């Protein structure tokens, strides 16, 4: 079990020292359809990408596309932070990017479909406003693919 209060002081102070002011009034899309009719995309901020893609650089606010049929042995992680555990990812991609769990949900009829493409950012050192342009561009791409729901995982 890990809570912020349980972290070493240097880690706790580092995390709490990041400015995280509210972005404004919270946008809120009401539920419009059951899970069995939804099309869902995964977004991770773990700095994942295909082995042949360009790795993430420091302060990189761009994203990498992860094709929907990607296998675990095709993905690597180039996140710049050295302050989180990577052995969970080495053991099981799904502990960071639960693509197999969502495929199982589609197979069981618990989810309508998965997007043709998923996405990874590298969530480190970035102020929220630095992510606005790439996030809004990404929203357009996801909607073109018919996506209505996004599931986000940090690292």
């Amino acid at each position, binding site marked *: *079990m*890990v809570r*912020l209060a349980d972290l*070493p002081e*240097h880690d706790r102070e580092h*995390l*709490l020292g990041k400015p995280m*002011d*509210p*972005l404004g009034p*919270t*946008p*809120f*899309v*009401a539920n419009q359809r059951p*899970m069995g009719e939804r099309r869902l995309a995964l977004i991770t*901020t773990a700095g994942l990408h295909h082995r042949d893609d360009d*790795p993430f*650089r*420091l302060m990189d606010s761009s994203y990498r596309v992860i094709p929907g049929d990607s296998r675990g042995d095709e*993905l*690597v*992680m*180039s996140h*710049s932070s*050295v*302050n989180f*555990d*990577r*052995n*969970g*990812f*080495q*053991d099981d991609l*799904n*502990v*960071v990017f*639960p693509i*197999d769990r969502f495929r*199982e*949900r589609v197979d069981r009829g618990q989810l309508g479909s998965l997007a043709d493409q998923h996405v990874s*950012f590298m969530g480190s050192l970035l102020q*929220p*406003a630095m*992510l*606005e342009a790439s*996030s*809004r561009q990404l*929203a357009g791409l*996801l*909607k073109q693919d018919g*996506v*209505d*729901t*996004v*599931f*986000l*995982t*940090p*690292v």
Partner: protein
Amino acid sequence: MSAIAWFLETEGLQTTGISLVREHTASLKPPRFLWTSFPLGRPLGKPNDAAFQHRVIDAALDLLDRPEGPVLEDFPEDLPDPPDVQAVCPIHFARPQAAPGSWQQRLTVELSLTSPWYELSRQRRGRTTFGVAKAPIEALVARLAHAIDQPPVEPADLAALKYALEDLKTYYQEAITAQPGHPDFRLLQQIVWRQTELGRAMLALYDRFAAHPDARLRGFARGIAPRGESGHDPAQTT
């Protein structure tokens, strides 16, 4: 990540997901997140436990039905503490005094101990997460050894060094955890940083860069070692 959710929702997409730092999510006020008490790096909690991962996903997807937001709910399950019985590192790394020579020589000797376990890991897991630097392990060892003596200053060379460090750690971590029932991630970090020539070499690199007059190298130093290791206590080194 909260910001990405916030922007996507303003574009009409319904979002939900997992938060690992509750204080950040509470402050940014994205539409919906499920906070979990899991360690950084493990948002779904337990590797290779599909049932547990599905419970986390269920709880996050349930938030889509809430009539209004922001919603920040706590996942009710914590991960159990690591077992008292410590798993043993399968690789017998040499003590510092037993391995004289240049960094290149010391790292090369150690690599010969580590490589068989890395290959075993690759076979057992059916994959490797090594490969960010797009270079063979021997070239990455040489890149690290060279950087301690002659720090690079060009941005492209520094980026290549960063990818080399990450791949070297990945290679070692996968080797040390090649067998089921391997050391948990806290012990794994201690082994890499305090028992290996790789850890000693990376701390030597950190010391060199952290004291360097070039501000780019001092900044780079913060991305070499975890905060708990860069101020390492030599007395704890085994």
